[in-house]
């Protein structure tokens, strides 16, 4: 995935201001930043949900906004569950599987739910599930088509230990399987555990972006706290 010069403005304020980076197969970018830094806006542009004011996003050379073929390779875990509350967990994931044209959507849905260890609640309507279980179903929904680019916005929010472990295992499996990951989180330990790259975003820009192996985690944590604490 290649993001070049992404800019998005809301009412005169630049939410994302010239962000460029590249993710190759097997890469995982952990993206940190204080609230309002522009992380969610960036993810929505990468997923093709929001048109950039300037710049472009390409997956395997195809622009995401215009290309169904590019969107077919992207999975998104967002703040919102993106679930239909009336439908069951299985129906929600199966609906996504059908939209992505999977040959056996029911089977794919069950496997995705098993991956997130929520298969025992497959036939429960989404509205009856706890916030954490809804998050697991939402992640299963995003992964059901085995995307080659997985965008995760605070995916650990609301998950208990079992859910977090299931997610970490699933993300590790996807990355080892050749998918590129972008993980937005406030938790440096969680983010850096999977990352091959790390970036800090503030006021719409990447203020730091480097390879994971070059980082001293303790020094990085201190610097991040300092950066996040600076008021705009």
């Amino acid at each position, binding site marked *: 995935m290649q993001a070049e010069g992404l800019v998005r403005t809301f009412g005169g304020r630049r939410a994302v201001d010239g962000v460029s980076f590249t993710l190759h197969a097997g890469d995982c970018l952990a993206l940190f930043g204080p609230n309002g830094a522009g992380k969610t806006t960036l993810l929505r542009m990468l997923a093709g*949900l929001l048109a950039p004011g300037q710049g472009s996003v390409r997956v395997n050379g195809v622009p995401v906004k215009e290309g169904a073929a590019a969107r077919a390779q992207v999975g998104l875990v967002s703040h919102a569950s993106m679930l239909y509350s009336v439908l069951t967990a299985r129906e929600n994931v199966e609906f996504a599987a059908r939209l992505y044209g999977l040959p056996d959507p029911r089977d794919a849905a069950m496997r995705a739910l098993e991956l997130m260890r929520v298969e025992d609640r497959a036939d429960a309507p989404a509205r009856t599930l706890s916030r954490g279980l809804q998050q697991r179903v939402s992640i299963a929904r995003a992964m059901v088509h*085995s995307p080659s680019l997985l965008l995760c916005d605070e995916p650990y929010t609301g998950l208990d230990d079992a859910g977090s472990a299931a997610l970490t295992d699933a993300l590790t499996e996807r990355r080892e399987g050749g998918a590129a990951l972008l993980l937005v989180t406030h938790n440096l330990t969680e983010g850096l555990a999977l990352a091959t790259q790390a970036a800090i975003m503030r006021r719409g820009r990447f203020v730091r972006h480097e390879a994971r192996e070059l980082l001293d985690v303790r020094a990085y944590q201190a610097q991040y706290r300092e950066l996040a604490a600076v008021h705009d």
Partner: protein
Amino acid sequence: MTDIAVPTPPGMLAAAWLVARKDLAIEFRTRTAFLSALVFALLGVTIFYFAWDATAVAAADLAPGVLWVIFTFAGLLGLQRSFGSELADRAVDGLLGAPISRESIYLGKAFANLVFVAGILFVTIPAVVLFYNLPMGSGIAALAGIAALAAVGLVAVGTLFSAMAVNTRMAELLLPMLSLPFFVPVVMAAAQSSARLMAGRPVAEAMPWLRILVAFDIVFVTACTLAFPFTLDE
């Protein structure tokens, strides 16, 4: 999951059917919008009936107006909820991020809405015929045809405006305000053509109005399908 390498996304009509089937499944589970619209339609027919002075206005003159006014407002109740389920928990992002065209989302929504309003018409037309004791006979099939044409036009416009209005704070008010002016040609043509049938006149007399309905459907289904993708941009 890793064995699935290259998914083949559904084509436009297949994706539209998936969206429609999902919407219908949700409506079938809850039935809230349909039952509300149905009760509204039947209460409307009843109120109009008791407000009617049979010595002043003939049933065949009043019934078409009653039918289409009630149907228009009952249909709006269904159209209101069309995109509501998508905004809760941002399920719409799942649709927009999927490898399907936005036109297919519109067509799927419109088809589900068409089934919804057809269900209302299925009950409302017999209710009007019974209440006003109309001698329909073989004209009921032609009336059903008019209803189908009118429903397509109303749904085509209403689905588009429902998508436009749903993100606003005044969605309940904005949808009727946007839609009703566009509904006028449909309601007028449907009322005029059905008035002739309810008066026992031959179908040929209703043909000019039916042509207007057909033309409206062709123009607005095409225009709304093409315009819909722009309504979802943030």
